[in-house]
């Protein structure tokens, strides 16, 4: 029964989690919150993470009731994310792996979200809507691989919401998205905003520019309230996400949808997705804020699966990577991920076949 320690700190949340055989034994987390009207910068974020990570590690071990010797593997976020915060967490993972003489596994942040979502909800082979401050993708399993069916062509939906919050100087505590959601509940008027779905993809930078522009004018004339703007923005961007998710589900004949990522905490988004799923006779899965928002246990869980599949990350290859590698071509849009899945999983993380080590391929179960 291997126990895996997972470190996550690719954005402004830092978490350390412990997972053993599908059970989360500990999952403490801290968030770096900046003043209203500002965002978080890499250097300051890394500084925050360095200041708290060792306390979090101790907390995680204590909460799990484990000592360092009970840990079988150290997992950490290898990427994607912000460079300085990623590195500040990775050095601790490498150090404890060497101190305790345990194997190291570098995890893809996106895979962490998906695998935790599947574990917690029990979804078998869902179409995944991965929406956060840094990512917006619709991912589906089709013909033996994860594939990106649709994504943002510019900024993530969470980034759009966060930057809109700055314009209105909405508080970043606990997160700008949460506060926009609460204000939206009090909105009454729907302001028409650009609706930018482009085939299977979406675009948010235009909406952001537009609403930044009109917000000041409309608020000054009293034409609408900040609550109306929050409401209108949510309704518009969430409808776009529902549309591209539905398109992917139709393409794959999928009966399950799973929302992961910080924006997935949003109850309004869950409502709108649920309505779409019901119309299709499909089931919606979503997790609560413990697992939607970046956390260490999701990295531990993905790391656990990779560890079980025999994957190890040698120190020399453990450097952080700010962006996920490669899109081979538009026609073959593959999410290239670190391999790692127990054979019984129907939903396999995989690299493109020609890049995979031959000895790993048979155990992946996707051939």
């Amino acid at each position, binding site marked *: 029964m291997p126990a895996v320690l997972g470190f996550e700190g690719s954005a402004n949340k830092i978490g350390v989690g412990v997972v053993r055989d599908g059970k989360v034994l500990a999952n403490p987390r801290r968030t770096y919150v900046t003043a209203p009207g500002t965002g978080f910068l890499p250097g300051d974020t890394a500084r925050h993470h360095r200041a708290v990570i060792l306390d979090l590690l101790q907390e995680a071990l204590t909460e799990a009731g484990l000592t360092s*010797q009970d840990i079988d593997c150290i997992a950490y976020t290898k990427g994607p994310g912000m460079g300085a915060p990623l590195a500040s967490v*990775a050095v*601790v993972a490498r*150090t404890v792996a060497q*101190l305790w*003489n345990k194997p190291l596994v570098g995890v893809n942040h996106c895979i962490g979200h998906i695998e935790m979502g599947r574990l917690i909800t029990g979804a078998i082979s869902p179409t995944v809507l991965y929406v956060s401050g840094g990512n917006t993708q619709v991912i589906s399993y089709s013909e033996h691989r994860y594939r990106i069916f649709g994504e943002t062509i510019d900024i993530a939906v969470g980034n759009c919401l966060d930057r809109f919050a700055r314009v209105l100087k909405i508080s970043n505590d606990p997160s700008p998205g949460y506060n926009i959601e609460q204000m939206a509940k009090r909105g009454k008027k729907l302001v028409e905003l650009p609706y930018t779905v482009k085939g299977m993809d979406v675009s948010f930078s235009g909406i952001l520019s537009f609403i930044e522009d009109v917000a000041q004018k409309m608020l000054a004339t009293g034409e609408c309230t900040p609550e109306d703007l929050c409401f209108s923005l949510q309704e518009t961007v969430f409808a776009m996400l529902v549309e591209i998710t539905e398109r992917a589900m139709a393409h794959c004949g999928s009966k399950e949808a799973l929302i992961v990522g910080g924006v997935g905490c949003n109850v309004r988004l869950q409502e709108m997705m649920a309505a779409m799923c019901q119309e299709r006779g499909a089931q919606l899965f979503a997790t609560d804020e413990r697992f939607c928002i970046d956390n260490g246990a999701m990295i531990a869980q993905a790391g656990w699966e990779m560890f079980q599949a025999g994957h190890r990350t040698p120190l020399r290859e453990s450097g952080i990577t700010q962006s996920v590698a490669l899109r081979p071509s538009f026609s073959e849009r593959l999410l290239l991920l670190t391999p790692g899945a127990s054979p019984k999983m129907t939903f396999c993380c995989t690299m493109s076949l020609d890049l995979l080590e031959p000895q790993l391929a048979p155990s992946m179960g996707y051939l």
Partner: protein
Amino acid sequence: MAEGGLEGGAAVDMQAAHSLGHTADGADSPTSCCCPGDAGAVAVIPSGAHPAARASEVSGWSKSTVPLTQRPGIRHHRFALTVPFPTSLEAEIACGSLAPDAEPHRGILGKDLKVSGCMLEVHWISEDSRLLRISIMNFLDQLALVVNTIKRFGPPVSR
């Protein structure tokens, strides 16, 4: 202990004690570089130049690069840091943790990590003093974190 060691041991050497091509010389480096081959390396690709054959002899450098010192006509800043550890194992652990993450601005700045006995030696070469300052400061912050981690969760288990 660790913090005192860090302050006492940091040697700011503004004159290059070693050129980067020199560190491959076994006679000068009694302990081989702990750092896995390319991990601490700087990818320096001068425009229009081809990778020099001798680059592959330099420990700690990527095989496809030419060390900054080979580029003609460019003046470089150099900075050397020496950090003492209580044991060579701890120095190796620190090197293993700090070497893998690549430097940004790899064409302009690079650093090389090496373990010598109980010492971690870091050498920077940079064409830009501002980037050099940033890299050094980041490294010192990361180093402090590694040292604190060893202090709090060490000592290393016996192998």
